[in-house]
């Protein structure tokens, strides 16, 4: 497995090759980061089709803006920033048009639970509980502000440092930290009664 350091180094090499006119070098970057960008996008939008759009658009935007990336920063962080911002735009547009981002996936999860119950897989109570937690998590993430959601997703799921998150959002370190705290507080308020009822 490639270490983060050597991946960043080879990302820089690939970018340099693209800039020098080797279009195929971009394939290395797309293939290396597409799965991670999808995961990030899904956690931001909660919608599979939107996440696929984010993946496509992120790599297209990154290609067009490649001259703006500076080698002293991490390529993946820069790429995630583009993906996070586009995801947020998408979520904002959906909200403006009165659509609920999680509707599709919540519906799918409900169907999954019905199938699982029918097949007598792991205890039905446990599955129903797990489904309720997932839905509550999804609804709470939907209720976070754009900044809180981005900061939280980047910290919790992507393991980015406060400094990297601050850079991605154009915030001070303290502001990024407080966005994460606020997100955690909201998640606690929403989830603690449910989670504690099972512990």
């Amino acid at each position, binding site marked *: 497995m490639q270490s983060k350091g050597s991946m960043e180094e080879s990302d820089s090499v690939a970018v340099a090759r693209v800039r020098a006119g080797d279009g195929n070098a971009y394939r290395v970057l797309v293939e290396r980061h*597409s799965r991670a960008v999808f995961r990030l996008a899904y956690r931001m939008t909660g919608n599979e089709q939107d996440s696929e759009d984010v993946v496509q658009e992120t790599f297209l935007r990154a290609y067009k803006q490649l001259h*703006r990336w500076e080698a002293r920063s991490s390529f993946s962080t820069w790429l995630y920033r583009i993906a996070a911002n586009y995801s947020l735009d998408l979520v904002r547009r959906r909200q403006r048009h009165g659509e609920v981002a999680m509707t599709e996936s919540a519906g799918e*999860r409900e169907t999954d639970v019905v199938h699982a119950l029918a097949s007598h897989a792991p205890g039905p109570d446990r599955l129903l509980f797990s489904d309720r937690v997932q839905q509550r998590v999804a609804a709470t993430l939907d209720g976070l502000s754009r900044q809180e959601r981005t900061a939280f997703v980047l910290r919790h799921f992507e393991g980015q440092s406060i400094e990297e998150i601050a850079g991605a959002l154009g915030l001070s370190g303290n502001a990024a930290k407080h966005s994460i705290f606020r997100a955690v507080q909201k998640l606690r308020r929403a989830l603690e009664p449910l989670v504690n009822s099972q512990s």
Partner: protein
Amino acid sequence: MKHATEEQLVLYYYGEQADEIQRHLESCEACRGSYQALQRVLNSVDSFPVPERGADYETRVWREVERRLPRRRALAWLAWKPLAAAAALGGLMAVAFFAGRSWRESGAKASAAADLEVRERVLMVAVGDHLERTQTVLAELANSGDPKNGALDISYEQRAAEDLVEANRLYRETAASAGDDRTANFLDELERVLLDVAHNPSQVSPGQLQDLRQEIEGRGILFKVKIFSSEVEEREAAQNAPVL
């Protein structure tokens, strides 16, 4: 040490301030209880499922992305330098013109229409690239977030717009002299928007940014660029233009 705050426990969960809080948790039952409650909540967030992608996902994404990437042409090296691209266009148009004329003078049965066709091909390739670059810059501005600390730095977009204005003028004049009034008129409208961007200060206030967005969105310029780009692509395809 006093009891750990919620913020300290959150940082500890994410591996920061580890030593200090670790020591405290070993000796404070109340904080240990609070931390375990926090842990349960944050661990439950991990249950948020992400759909699995197939084994060929990376290849599939690349195929789609590659299809939509700006086509790589001999002019691609000029992609970051719009003015140089426009100047190169002038050279190419001149070469096309003189090549066509000397061919005719040598006795070949070429018509003025063929001459025009070559020039139009060259122009369409160059204008297609120009519109892609313009779209990127204007979309950046239209989609930029609200200014932080009362101002947004648009110096990059501004410099890009200055270059694009110059290139746009050359393309517009070339289109007009080639008799392509539709392209010339469209580029004229685009030039006004690019000039607005170029003439703004490099740090814009929320009000100035709003005005700029209105200028871009009010004229529907991004939509028009998109439509016109598609038309350019269709015209290129119809002409089956050879790679330059």
